[in-house]
């Protein structure tokens, strides 16, 4: 059991948890993730590690409610425990001095972009960050990102904060202004990572994206998280999660992530019908939004059923 020592909403439906996990805290590096299981009948879902505190033996994760498991997770509070947390999984981000790096965080993907941006800054890079969200309320980690960036740009889809538009608009501006960019790192919804990769391809700017396929064990055993990279199968859990954005077959990723859509919908419907222990707003919006823009943290999207939180 892994105890939650702090739990706080950062935005509607987006919650940060600080969890006691000394082994993981000691080893975590930017770009890595954990897999957790909340209760005995629960599924295993991968979630990004935002930061860790080796001295205190804690890690922090940021969760956006999308499917049943993430909704349940977001009902947990300080003092509650999570049955299983395993990690840190995946290869860490490759941190070195590239020169100028543009870090793009879309939605809750910003939570994963943040530790990488921070490490890149410490490694001597000039870090330009672009954070995008649907609206003002959903902009997260603004102060944290500002601290580790030489410049920070914010876009919202509806213009309620920062500039109206998408992260790619800002990226295009940078490119058009002749800003020298040595590396782009994009973490967020698949559509965003795809758009960023397409924009940088023609400019020959090396672009790294962090992929979020369906995953079970996270150790290279099941092969469920296979992604097509340059026409070849790779496993996001052991070969990734970060890949060269110009080599990723995004349509296959989108297609495979939709594999359990029916079951996920059923789980969510049944969960809504029994809203015990349900604290965030159970609007139908959440699920629809999910399919519109697959969310970063709930990699295994949701699924599920009648199981009550124990």
């Amino acid at each position, binding site marked *: 059991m892994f105890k939650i020592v702090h739990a706080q909403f950062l935005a509607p439906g987006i919650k940060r948890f600080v969890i006691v996990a000394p*082994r*993981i805290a000691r*080893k975590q590096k930017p770009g890595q993730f954990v897999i957790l*299981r909340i209760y005995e*009948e*629960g*599924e*295993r879902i991968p979630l990004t590690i935002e930061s860790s505190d080796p001295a205190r033996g804690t890690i922090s994760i940021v969760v956006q409610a999308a499917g*049943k*498991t993430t909704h349940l997770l977001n009902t947990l509070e300080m003092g509650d425990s999570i*049955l*299983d*947390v*395993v*990690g*840190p*999984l995946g290869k860490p981000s490759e941190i070195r001095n590239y020169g100028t790096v543009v870090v793009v965080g879309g939605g809750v993907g910003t939570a994963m972009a943040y530790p990488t941006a921070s490490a890149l800054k410490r490694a001597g890079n000039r870090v330009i960050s672009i954070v995008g969200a649907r609206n003002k309320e959903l902009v997260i980690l603004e102060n944290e990102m500002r601290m580790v960036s030489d410049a920070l740009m914010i876009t919202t889809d509806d213009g309620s904060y920062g500039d109206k538009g998408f992260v790619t608009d800002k990226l295009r501006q940078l490119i058009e202004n002749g800003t020298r960019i040595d590396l782009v790192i994009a973490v967020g919804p698949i559509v965003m990572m795809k758009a960023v990769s397409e924009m940088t391809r023609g400019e020959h700017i090396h672009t790294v994206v962090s992929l979020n396929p369906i995953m*079970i*064990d*996270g*150790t*290279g*055993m*099941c*092969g*469920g998280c*296979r992604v*097509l990279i340059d026409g070849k*199968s790779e*496993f996001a859990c*052991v070969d990734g999660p970060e890949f060269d954005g110009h080599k990723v*077959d995004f349509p*296959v990723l989108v*297609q*495979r992530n*939709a*594999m*359990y859509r*029916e*079951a*996920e919908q*059923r*789980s969510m419907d*049944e969960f809504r019908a029994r809203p015990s222990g349900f604290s965030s707003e159970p609007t139908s919006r959440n699920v629809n939004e999910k399919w519109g823009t697959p969310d970063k943290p709930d990699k295994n999207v949701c*699924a*599920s*059923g*009648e*199981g009550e939180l124990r």
Partner: protein
Amino acid sequence: MSPATKSKNPVSPKDRMKIARQLMPEQAPEVRAQNFEEVNLGYSAELAQQEARRCLECAKPTCTDNCPVGIDVKAFVELIVAGDFLGAAAKIRENNVLPAITGRVCPQEDQCEGKCLLSKKVKPLGIGYLERFVADYEQRMGTHVVPKVAPSGKKVAIVGSGPAGLTVAGDLIQKGHRVRVFEALHEIGGVLVYGIPEFRLPKQIVREQIDYMREMGVEFETDVVVGRTVTVDELLEEEGYDAVFIGTGAGLPQFMNIPGEHLNGVYSANEFLTRINLMKAYRFPVYDEPMLDLHGKDVAVIGGGNTALDAIRSALRLGAHKAYVLYRRSEAEMPARAEEVHHARQEGIDFQMLTAPVEFLSEGSGWLTAARCVRMELGEPDASGRRRPVAMKGSEFDLPLSVAVIAIGTSANPIVQSTTPGLGTNPRGYIQAGEQTQRTTRKGVFAGGDIVTGSATVILAMGAGRRAANSIHEYLTTGEW
């Protein structure tokens, strides 16, 4: 049995061959194809004793020769004849810490039963069934003895809680060493829990064996991916372990690299079985992990091993309409246990031998709709000694399918190797270990099971575990490398 001891067997040696091999009671095929309960129901005491009486009590028994852990078959069978079932269980436990499991999953026809003298004339002695009987009897009686041993002061870390790791743990704890087993998943048992289905190996049986190990003092820690959560070097240098055993098992599933493998509906056997066995997706929505709904769907597995049969028989139980095995060689080359092939046929699995897919097709939807297959014929023997399958020209046909499960083997999982400097691997990425000593190229580090040999059987992994335990004990005692 020494000639001086009088046989307890009431049946004269010449009459023993007249007793038919006692049939294993089992669920009727049409019933069991609808559930995940165990197929075999187990011998009663009467059936077990009757079967045991068939043993010829050879002066020079050969039934132990092919046993990877060296069980004294003749001795335990004699104890069954004498009615001392607990004694028989204890006799097996001298060499095998997981008898309830091996009694169910060993390929006995290639090992003990394959060497049984009876098989020259009639059916071999049901050694696997007898092993299973005494192990289950012992469990029901709840009387297994927890040996008390003086602590050695040494401690050993075991990486992976599959058959190899559990064997090392069980053997070393009985030699007085402190033992801690690290498991990456949330359940103890490795392939025994994520791979082998309930209908062949009930998880309750695995749990009971593990509980027994806990009683003996073995410590378990789940949710630890050695190489990521903690490294082998940290275990040795910072956590004070005197030796480490690596038994991380079969790794990354292999794919065929044919077009369409990324279509929805195409699974690796590991993923398919993990969803069902570990995550209990067959009980969705009580359990959260989803599974594609197989009711009324046509499903095929590609491969001819136990994993392939486990997957397709699971698909049948999940409501599949047609359930095919596509195997590129012929039945004679199938690596699966004979009993599983027999059971699968009884349940209505459609075996398409000498058949291989060359492409997975969809109608543009991203979902599998068919496999384009070719028929094969057998040519000259290949490196494995089996005749190489060669595609027949013009034999292509499309087999309509909604789900395909690829069960053609695995390659080495790289996590431990890539995070342990100086740990030697072979060109295929498996860990190098001495055949008898199971010693790796790193001092104090041992390895065994599938991570050394590539995919094999539970009992071969246990055999490696047994050799490793002896070798580790020797190293801990002498300090010599």
